[in-house]
């Protein structure tokens, strides 16, 4: 391809996908940025990069990978090596910048004192302690004064080993020392929810230390990470930031034949499938199944989308070596319909957006069809070599999370419960009878610290039932929760089938006797359950208790939130004349006597016990 060749939108964006050629990304940074800025619906964020080395290349690459995730960053960069001074001396430019995220780009070059040769173990430990104190003082100041989420590199390793292999276990060895520090960084991360590690020890190992450091870049530019290694570094940081904004994919949609096992179950029969330890390819399929099972265990929903007779498809899972079992799947589509149709149905059945799905199929024609017809669905170029499937999924960082919360672990079981709810529904004369039989209880109360992470996650990934599509960081949510100038409510719903988790949130800004709604959203997994009415009842109660007489509801139309265009009208709000196509305002008299709208949900403000899912 020459530069004169016309490149299409998807051609150029493919550069950011597996396998990423770092040189190409560097060269085409301007065209990539231009193309990425054309997308709509970008979430703004403010990132301060505090560097222990040069950071401008890190910033430029990070910008690309964030834009590719739908996040538009504004950056602050510290002066060269000023990461500590900027914080300790409260650089006014940094303080005024008010970052949402602070990324501390430090490396082994920034260790202040390595142990002396053959220093006693106790003295080495004292050094570890002193180094930790130095870093902790920064983290604590960032956290208390700036309230930002912190992303901190752990330590990579130097290329040279003056002590040879002794470096690894001699207490004064540099490698041993760096590993001790990494272990202490990890301890700190475990105790601080808004402190996240960017694991450059792993990244540098993956890239290889020579390629990671490069030979001349440190001396000539004080780049601790070579330009080409800056690409995977930026990709990794972007994945962490994506997880902070709750933009993690939720569901893995899998083909069956030659994707989860070798062979075609309908033709070859289950006994002849290539799956198991006795065959090299069979072993690779087994390992891929194990990887998928791990994803399922941590809350990623699995779905099948296969061209097969359903009975044949199901029989495949009866193979004695199959690690995946039928009950691991939240949705199962095996038929001869076009895959895009099946995938749409999967999203509907699971009540999640198409942009929450990742589709894996060994057949390039199917991939291309799905990518073309459902651009919201992530379709990695998985190839046809099963031994690389997991590697491609890992590389794209679809399922990066900043922590595992109970709701994640419950999710897979929730979706199988949801399937039970649907089949249960068909036995009722009317919908009201069905709702009533669900024995629903909603815990609705002002934002509480225990739910902070889940509320943030929900706010940042809900697109459809979302009246304003405003995004917030967990620091902002924490501030709002404590500010008497706001009314906040979250809603958690349980029913006879189990716990639906925290599914709704709203934020209103108090202006005298008026409450202006900044945010109202609900997870689509509880659509048509009257949960929005329960939230409305609770909101009116809050308003009346606080002397608020008027509620102004705001609806900002987006590409995805058409389903709530009638939300305020449905609740009896009157449309205000100041409304425009970009922003509608609706008014409700909150002082009038209120009788509860929901008939099917019992409300409580007390924390419900975590209900084991059926």
């Amino acid at each position: 391809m020459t530069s004169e060749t016309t490149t299409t939108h998807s051609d150029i964006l493919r550069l950011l996908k597996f396998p990423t050629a770092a040189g190409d990304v560097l060269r085409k940074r301007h065209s990539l940025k231009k193309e990425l800025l054309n997308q709509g619906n970008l979430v703004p964020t403010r990132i301060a990069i505090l560097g222990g080395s040069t950071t401008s290349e890190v910033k430029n690459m990070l910008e690309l990978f964030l834009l590719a995730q739908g996040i538009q960053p504004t950056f602050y960069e510290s002066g060269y090596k000023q990461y500590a001074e900027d914080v300790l001396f409260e650089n006014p430019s940094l303080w005024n910048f008010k970052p949402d995220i602070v990324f501390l780009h430090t490396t082994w070059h920034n260790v202040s004192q390595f142990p002396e040769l053959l220093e006693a173990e106790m003295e080495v430990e004292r050094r570890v302690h002193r180094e930790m104190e130095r870093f902790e003082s920064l983290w604590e100041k960032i956290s208390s004064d700036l309230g930002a989420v912190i992303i901190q590199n752990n330590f990579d390793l130097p290329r040279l080993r003056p002590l040879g292999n002794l470096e690894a276990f001699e207490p004064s060895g540099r490698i041993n020392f760096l590993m001790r520090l990494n272990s202490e960084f990890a301890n700190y991360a475990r105790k601080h929810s808004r402190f996240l590690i960017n694991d450059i020890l792993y990244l540098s190992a993956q890239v290889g230390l020579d390629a990671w450091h490069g030979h001349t870049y440190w001396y000539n530019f004080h780049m601790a990470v070579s330009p080409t290694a800056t690409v995977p570094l930026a990709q990794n940081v972007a994945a962490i930031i994506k997880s902070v904004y709750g933009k993690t994919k939720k569901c893995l949609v899998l083909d069956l034949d030659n994707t989860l096992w070798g062979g075609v179950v309908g033709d070859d029969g289950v006994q002849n499938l290539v799956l198991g330890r006795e065959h090299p390819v069979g072993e690779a399929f087994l390992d891929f199944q194990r990887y998928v099972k791990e994803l399922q265990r941590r809350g990623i929903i699995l779905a099948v989308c296969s061209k097969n007779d359903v009975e044949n498809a199901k029989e495949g899972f009866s193979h004695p070596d199959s690690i995946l079992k039928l009950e691991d799947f939240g949705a199962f589509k095996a038929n001869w319909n076009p895959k895009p149709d099946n995938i749409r149905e999967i999203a509907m059945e699971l009540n999640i957006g198409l942009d929450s799905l990742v589709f894996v199929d060994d057949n390039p024609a199917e991939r291309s069809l799905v990518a073309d017809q459902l651009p919201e669905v992530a379709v990695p170029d998985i190839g046809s070599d099963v031994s690389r499937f997991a590697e491609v999924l890992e590389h794209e960082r679809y399922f990066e999370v900043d922590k595992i919360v109970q709701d994640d672990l419950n999710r897979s079981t929730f979706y199988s419960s949801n399937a039970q709810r649907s089949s249960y529904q068909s036995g009722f004369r009317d919908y009201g009878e069905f709702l009533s039989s669900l024995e629903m209880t909603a815990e609705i109360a002002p934002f509480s610290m225990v739910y902070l992470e889940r509320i943030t996650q929900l706010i940042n990934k809900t697109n459809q039932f979302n009246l304003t599509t405003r995004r917030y960081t967990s620091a902002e949510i924490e501030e709002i929760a404590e500010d008497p100038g706001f009314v906040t409510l979250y809603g958690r719903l349980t029913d006879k089938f189990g716990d639906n988790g925290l599914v709704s949130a709203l934020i209103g800004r108090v202006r005298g006797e008026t409450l202006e709604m900044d945010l109202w959203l609900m997870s689509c997994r509880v659509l048509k359950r009257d949960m929005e009415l329960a939230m409305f009842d609770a909101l009116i109660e809050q308003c009346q208790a606080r002397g608020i007489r008027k509620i102004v509801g705001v609806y900002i139309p987006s590409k995805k939130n058409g389903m709530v265009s009638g939300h305020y009208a449905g609740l009896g709000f009157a449309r205000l004349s100041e409304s425009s196509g970009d922003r509608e305002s609706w008014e409700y008299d909150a002082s009038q006597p209120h009788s509860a709208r929901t008939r099917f949900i019992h409300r409580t403000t007390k924390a419900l016990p975590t209900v084991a899912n059926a």
Partner: protein
Amino acid sequence: MHETGKLMTRKDFLLEMDEILGLKTGTLRGDEKLEELENWDSTALISLIVLAETSNNVKISPDQVVGCSTVADLLRLAQVEG
């Protein structure tokens, strides 16, 4: 993009430089001053070094590049011909 495995010509290099700087294809002619170029920054410089190293297997010491003031100087360093 320049074809892998083949040494870059002067024309290839100028086209790649257009790309790196986000300029319209065919903008650079070879006699421009680097400082006056739109989008000239450290990332552009570093991307050019990576390009010369990977495509033409030329080891350019960054110090040499810092000494360059025109596009023509860079072409000389990258040892492109034609």
